[in-house]
């Protein structure tokens, strides 16, 4: 846990440092007063100091931390969260090309078994209801524009 906090704090310090650097490209002050760079420079500066302070606090002991807590998931627990992430990424990458219905049909039909569902009747029923059914409700009834894809479905 301690090492993870130190890494996280260091990454935050780098992010804040980058913000200060990037904010320097915008005017700090202009004719009217504080410019677009003003807030970023101050925030980034304070952020760097606080992140360094947190690293020092953790290195010194950091009594608020649960030192034994596990941060990285066990290997056996990785596939399910990974399947969710890959599933969302595939929907995001394909939804504008294949349309909402097809993208979500595949998403549901593949993700449910990957998460451990073995009911082979429920899976197709839910996949159709969750894709075609949801699309119908939102697109036709609630007039929410959803992508039809290049196939128009």
């Amino acid at each position, binding site marked *: 846990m301690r090492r993870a906090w130190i890494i996280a704090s260091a990454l935050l310090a780098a992010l804040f440092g980058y913000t200060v650097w990037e904010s320097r490209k915008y005017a700090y002050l202009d004719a009217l007063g504080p410019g677009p760079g003003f807030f970023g420079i101050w925030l980034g500066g304070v*952020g760097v100091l606080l992140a360094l302070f947190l690293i020092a606090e953790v290195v010194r002991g*950091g009594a608020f931390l649960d030192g034994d807590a596990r941060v990285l998931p066990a290997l056996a627990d990785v596939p399910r969260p990974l399947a969710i992430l890959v599933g969302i990424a595939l929907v995001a990458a394909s939804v504008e090309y294949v349309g909402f219905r097809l993208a979500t049909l595949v998403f549901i039909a593949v993700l449910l078994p990957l998460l451990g569902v073995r009911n082979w009747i429920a899976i197709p029923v839910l996949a159709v209801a969750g894709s075609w059914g949801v699309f119908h409700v939102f697109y036709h009834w609630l007039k*929410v524009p959803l992508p039809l894809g290049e196939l128009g479905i």
Partner: protein
Amino acid sequence: MEGLTFLLNGMIAASTGQNLLFAVAGCFLGTLIGVLPGVGPAAGTAILIPLTFKLDATAGIIMLCAIYYGAMYGGTITSVLINVPGEAASVVTCLDGYEMAKQGRGGTALGIAAIGSFIGGSIATLALVVVAPYLAQLGLRFGPPEFFGLMLLGLCLVTALAGRSIVAGLLMAIVGLLLSLVGQDPTRGAPRFTFDIVALYDGVDFIPVVMGLFGVGELLSTAEKPYRDVLKTNLTRLFPTAAEWKRSIGAIFRGSGIGLFMGLIPGVGAIVPTFMAYILEKKLSRHPEQFGKGAIEGVAAPETANNAYANASMIPLLTLGIPSSPTIAIIMGAFIMKGLAPGPFLFSEKPDLVWAVIASFFVGNVILLVMNLPFVGLWARILHIPWQYICVGTLLFCILGAYSLRQSVFDIWVMLAFGIIGFTMRKLDLPTAPLILGLILGKELEKNLRTSLEMSGGDFSIFFTRWLSLALLIMSAMIIIGSALSLAPKEVRESTAD
């Protein structure tokens, strides 16, 4: 007297067939969201925003508010039956609610929670009717320095009470504020941190961020270690006995007072009043040893405080335009989507809408009571649905919600990225609430800071020479110093990481 006339008109508007229907639908969906572990009120309200796209402003906002307080009650059911809070504010209910369920008194625990929520919510709404017009009048006198001070106070409160380390909380708030820098500069309109990505010119929308942090992040955690054991308990006896009533009634009224008061302060978060109400009851009780072992006051007080807070937290939003929590910020977003700006001017410009929404809180409290007492068994049965179905269904609505707001695939990617960040933050026990509030308040905070400095010609003393601004800044500093010296109760800080 004028307020009463407006309220009566609001009551008539809120009771029309359409508005009543959407209030019922909102209460139902909200309770469902609260019941489903892994979907908190913030993500749930955000996911359901597309449902309100086609509705007029009054019906849409009534529905979202109903979803909010429905979710606040729904979280109680999981706390009592599976010892897992449906949302953060129900954490404390687990202590005695689950113990009551183990003793076969689960029905009574849910019954007293529903009755307490009704009383607390109604008292808070009554206070809203009385206080709101005066606060709105006061809000009209606020200038940029005062608004800056108020937002800073809200941010400090969220940060000070969030998580184990005040420094980590501050860092998360800064990350949220930095995210708000992306897009157009609020005073000059110049693009910043857009990296030539067209989608970033409008900034990072907080809805996909909320869905990622609270929705996808939570589902990833659930998927890593899926486990749920629903307790079989007696749900037939819902009404407390005379002796239980006697023990609960004082707790309900004290819980109402605490929830109401804390709801008025922007940024406090729902968990604070629930813990305060619980701790107060334990201190006042003649049998403090029974707390944690199924004391009915241990359910009545925090649940009442929770709902009183939920209703009262609308006061800062409606009168000053300040969201108290991520969920309220989403409701604020719904106002903005409908072309309305919450704040002091709303009362004078759109009194019909404001009073219809306020009146709908009374109506919603009645609906929740009527819906939840007879249907407790139904909600309990929903808990038996395998988590995989809930997970995939929720993900589907997250994708739909993220996309449909701006018809942008980019927002699905944003949601995915913040899902990973949210999952990591949970692993590291970093608080998410300061990040969200920082993102939401960031643009306005910066605008008010810079406008104040423009007014004073760059002189920071403008914040210290106006008494209200000075008072707000002193309070903010005291909160941060108090938290750094660990003055906030340990239980509150450790339970508010989310």
